[in-house]
């Protein structure tokens, strides 16, 4: 893969060039100071050294609430046909790129989801290297994640730009004059200890049935939903249908759900297969680290650290993998 | 033999009320207006609560007036704590008051009283009989509500307004959108005002007493905070001395106390404001000029038309305030800093229905030790009862359903807000 050098002072023009291919979105700061992915109006909006956004880019692919069917008496149920505007998502960190790769496996696997695919195809990913902090433990398998269309690596005075996909190459074609050839080889990072542990655990299928941590988690958890909302790979959803005021038409939509909510394991008549929080934490553990169905054995956690940051009562499932948690298994 | 005609519940008003007409044969002996809302003991709920919770609790006294209660409460607390709010905060507060007035006046004009003019039973009937007028009215109302929602964070019980300032400023885009919306409905409001000026009043023309108007004002313009209570008989007082001007008495037949200025029965509301001369913007000034013969010195049956003029005024005022806000530059202060200490504060504002006064006593920790609230409907109650008696007497001989209908229309002209009127006041 060829790497080009993009000097800092050409970034603005580079972004202008990218926005010819779609609406430019990237990490920006809200007036309250929250780092989020959102529309980028000018280069100065863009946070080039951000840590992590509150919600990962999954919101572009699987919005918190999305209409999935419309009903009319005449036509029955039909798929909504909202055209997906093309979006250039700039500045996606490797952990989030891996998150997207995971969602792709779920939603574009053997049972592809048309609504997901439509959004996925309308998005171009421009990755950006990052500096880890004390919360995250991401490790990309390669230095340049394969699902980025373009990938930028911070280097002194600029970025190393690589086109990963043909779409990426196409975009670079028009931007050649901003780029210089480069011989810099960026450093590669070693796998984070935590991620090594997680991968080991996933391989061995360990479930820590006797760890006292479960009780502690269950007693403290507020079921506030933050950990799932903010996780790049949590994708459980609920489906609901509402009639409209005309008395005949209806809309069906799906919205993000959370395995720590009581209703998640309920069936009609009130029977609940995961009645208490302890069981729901087990479930979360099984799904997140050991994987279900065709993704059994594939850990979903990409190490972005969001769940540790957003939990109001400091619950951290990875404690299971540290000495203490492990010792109890 | 005496008999009693009872109108219960009063309909198309906000809150629970009853009118009883006592008759001997066909002669009207007396009329009682009972504001029968159950007392929620709001002052008692406030005592013992910290200063910052007071506005959040007290705005729940009434939904339609929630913004103005909230702002009055904030100003009283800030006066107790000596807080100097920023120009921005002041403008936003005025803006939400304008929004509240647009919403309240249009709800009242189009949904509650217009049916009387067009011989409809309510908004649902009106939707069939006068769909264009209703829809135009609802558009105006929506514009007022949008202001309340964007500035207050919620349509009712505005959460965004807190002691010293606000939680978050609306964005420039939101302000521009509000301005556009206000500009669109301004012609609708002018049309509506003309409509109320020309429609035949459904009310029997009786000789009602000439009211003594009262309003809160500033010497200069309408900006916050207001300083003076003024009356059309020339009396006036600083708002902190409102208790010297306004006396209250318990009447056995009502859950709200009646309020008078000494012996004088006073009237507050849109008509009073116009008669006491609020500063109008250009188009509302024109509307007032056009309708002056119907408004100047008029009794309360003209209040509806006065609200029509004010509807134009608050839309214009809203636009002017948004322009002022758009002109502000630089980093804007969200909340003014302040220290908590013992103190007492009074604030008065014009609610859509007239003068509203809040007073609080705070201890050294900012905990409320006493609260007093005077609401416009409590002030209007005596005048309402007096006018009901005159109207009923003038209608001697009318059959019961006509009499009841006429009395209800008169009550509606006052636009009573019974939820806020009913609360027992500490003296």
């Amino acid at each position: 893969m060829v790497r080009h050098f993009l000097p800092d002072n050409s970034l603005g023009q580079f972004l202008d060039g990218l926005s010819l291919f779609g609406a430019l979105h990237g990490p920006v700061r809200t007036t309250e100071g929250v780092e989020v992915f959102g529309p980028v109006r000018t280069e100065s909006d863009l946070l080039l050294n951000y840590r992590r956004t509150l919600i990962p880019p999954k919101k572009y692919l699987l919005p918190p609430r999305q209409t999935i069917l419309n009903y009319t008496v005449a036509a029955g149920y039909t798929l909504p046909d909202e055209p997906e505007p093309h979006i250039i998502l700039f500045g996606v960190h490797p952990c989030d790129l891996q998150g997207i790769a995971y969602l792709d496996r779920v939603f574009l696997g053997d049972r592809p989801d048309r609504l997901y695919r439509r959004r996925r195809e309308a998005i171009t990913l421009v990755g950006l290297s990052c500096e880890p902090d004390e919360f995250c433990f991401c490790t990309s398998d390669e230095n340049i994640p394969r699902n980025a269309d373009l990938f930028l690596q911070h280097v002194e005075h600029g970025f190393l730009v690589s086109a990963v996909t043909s779409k990426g190459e196409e975009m670079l074609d028009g931007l050649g004059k901003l780029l210089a050839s480069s011989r810099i080889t960026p450093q590669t990072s070693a796998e984070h200890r935590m991620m090594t542990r997680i991968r080991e655990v996933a391989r061995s299928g360990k479930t820590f049935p006797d760890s006292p941590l479960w009780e502690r988690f269950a007693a403290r958890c507020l079921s506030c939903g933050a950990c799932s909302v903010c996780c790049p790979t949590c994708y459980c959803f609920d489906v609901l249908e509402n009639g409209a005021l005309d008395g005949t038409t209806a809309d069906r939509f799906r919205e993000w759900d959370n395995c720590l909510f009581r209703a998640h394991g309920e069936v009609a008549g009130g029977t609940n297969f995961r009645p208490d929080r302890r069981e729901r934490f087990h479930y979360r553990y099984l799904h997140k680290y050991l994987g279900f169905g065709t993704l059994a054995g594939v850990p979903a956690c990409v190490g972005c650290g969001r769940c540790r940051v957003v939990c109001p009562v400091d619950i951290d499932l990875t404690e299971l993998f540290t000495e203490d948690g492990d010792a109890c298994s | 033999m005496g008999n009693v005609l009872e109108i219960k519940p009063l309909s198309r008003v906000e809150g629970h009320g009853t009118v009883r007409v006592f008759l001997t044969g066909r002669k009207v002996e007396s009329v009682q207006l009972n504001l029968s809302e159950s007392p929620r003991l709001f002052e008692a709920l406030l005592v013992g609560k910290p200063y910052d919770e007071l506005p959040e609790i007290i705005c729940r006294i009434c939904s339609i007036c929630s913004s103005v209660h909230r702002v009055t409460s904030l100003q009283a607390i800030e006066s107790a704590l000596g807080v100097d709010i920023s120009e921005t905060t002041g403008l936003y507060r005025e803006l939400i008051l304008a929004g509240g007035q647009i919403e309240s006046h249009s709800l009242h004009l189009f949904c509650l009283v217009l049916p009387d003019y067009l011989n409809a039973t309510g908004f649902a009937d009106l939707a069939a009989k006068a769909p264009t007028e209703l829809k135009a009215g609802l558009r105006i109302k929506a514009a007022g509500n949008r202001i309340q929602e964007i500035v207050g964070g919620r349509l009712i019980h505005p959460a965004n307004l807190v002691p010293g300032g606000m939680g978050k400023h609306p964005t420039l885009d939101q302000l521009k959108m509000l301005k556009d919306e206000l500009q669109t409905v301004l012609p609708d409001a002018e049309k509506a005002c003309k409509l109320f000026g020309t429609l035949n009043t459904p009310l029997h023309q009786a000789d009602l007493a000439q009211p003594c108007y009262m309003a809160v004002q500033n010497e200069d313009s309408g900006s916050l905070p207001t300083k003076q209570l003024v009356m059309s008989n020339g009396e006036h007082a600083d708002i902190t001395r409102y208790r010297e001007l306004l006396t209250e008495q318990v009447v056995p037949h009502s859950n709200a106390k009646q309020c008078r200025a000494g012996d004088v029965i006073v009237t507050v509301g849109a008509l009073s404001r116009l008669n006491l001369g609020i500063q109008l913007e250009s188009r509302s000034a024109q509307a007032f000029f056009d309708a002056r013969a119907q408004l100047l010195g008029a009794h309360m049956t003209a209040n509806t038309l006065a609200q029509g003029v004010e509807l134009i005024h608050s839309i214009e005022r809203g636009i002017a305030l948004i322009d002022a806000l758009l002109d502000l530059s630089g980093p804007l202060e969200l909340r003014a800093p302040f220290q908590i200490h013992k103190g007492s504060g009074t604030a008065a504002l014009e609610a859509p229905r007239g003068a509203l006064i809040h007073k609080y006593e705070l201890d050294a920790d900012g905990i409320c030790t006493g609260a007093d609230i005077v609401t416009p409907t409590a002030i209007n109650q005596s005048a309402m009862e007096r006018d009901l008696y005159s109207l009923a007497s003038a209608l001697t001989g009318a059959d019961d359903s006509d009499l009841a209908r006429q009395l209800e229309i008169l009550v509606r002209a006052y636009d009573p807000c019974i939820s806020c009127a009913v609360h027992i006041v500490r003296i």
Partner: protein
Amino acid sequence: MHAPEFDSVPIPARIQTIQQLTADTALFRLKLEEKLPSVFIPGQFIQLSVPAGGEIPISPADLPAEDGTMELCVRRFGHVTSLLHRTKEGDQVGIRGPFGNGFPVDAMSGKDVLLLAGGLGIAPLRSLLFHLLRHRSDVRSLTLMYGAREPAVMLFKNELLDLANTGSLRLLLTVDFLTETCQTEPACNVGLLPTLLKGVQLEPGHSCAAVCGPPPLYRCTIDELLRAGVVEDNIYLSLERRMKCGVGLCCHCAVGQYFCCCDGPVFRYRDIKDIPGAL
């Protein structure tokens, strides 16, 4: 076999007839306006859409007929089922499916087959029963044990008695308790369903059982079945979970590492017996 996708659009269907079976349960005969994308295997389920209510999993109560009709036996339980019970003949509903794995009918051939239905569990088993009756010579013997709360709520009773009278089916009925008026009901045991298994002895390896009913039924029936000689491999259970998508995406229906909607709803007992919370 290819199951429909989650975003597949429900096929329109009309309600042809509604037959009230008990106070809260009715048999809805639907006519599909298009063909189902694949052949229905007993034990599979469809997702039934009731406009403005939503979508719920239902196991058809018979084998869909050539003319595109299908029978659903549904109890009024909550949100969607109540709305279904308010529909009238001629109303429109929607169908997606079939989803999941049904009963392994091939594995039943040559065996003594025991069907155990508790309450509404008779609905899914009825389609299996019809299938087996149609291929009666493939299985060695066919027994249906069906338990209901009380005689008044026993579903399809006359139909089942008629079938039993043809001799191709051994039918054992039980009710949890008898009400005054029904004391003369014929051929009906009193007691929970497992009591019917008391004393039954089957040939291990040559017998199999299909069980469907409310969760407590499984817990109390399995031991009895094992004791009667049915091996773990040959006990098939149809499990209920909340299903929103039907294809293993929404993640509500997980049973251990399996998804009830695509790995089930029919599971072999051996595969799930060690999963905590499965039953």
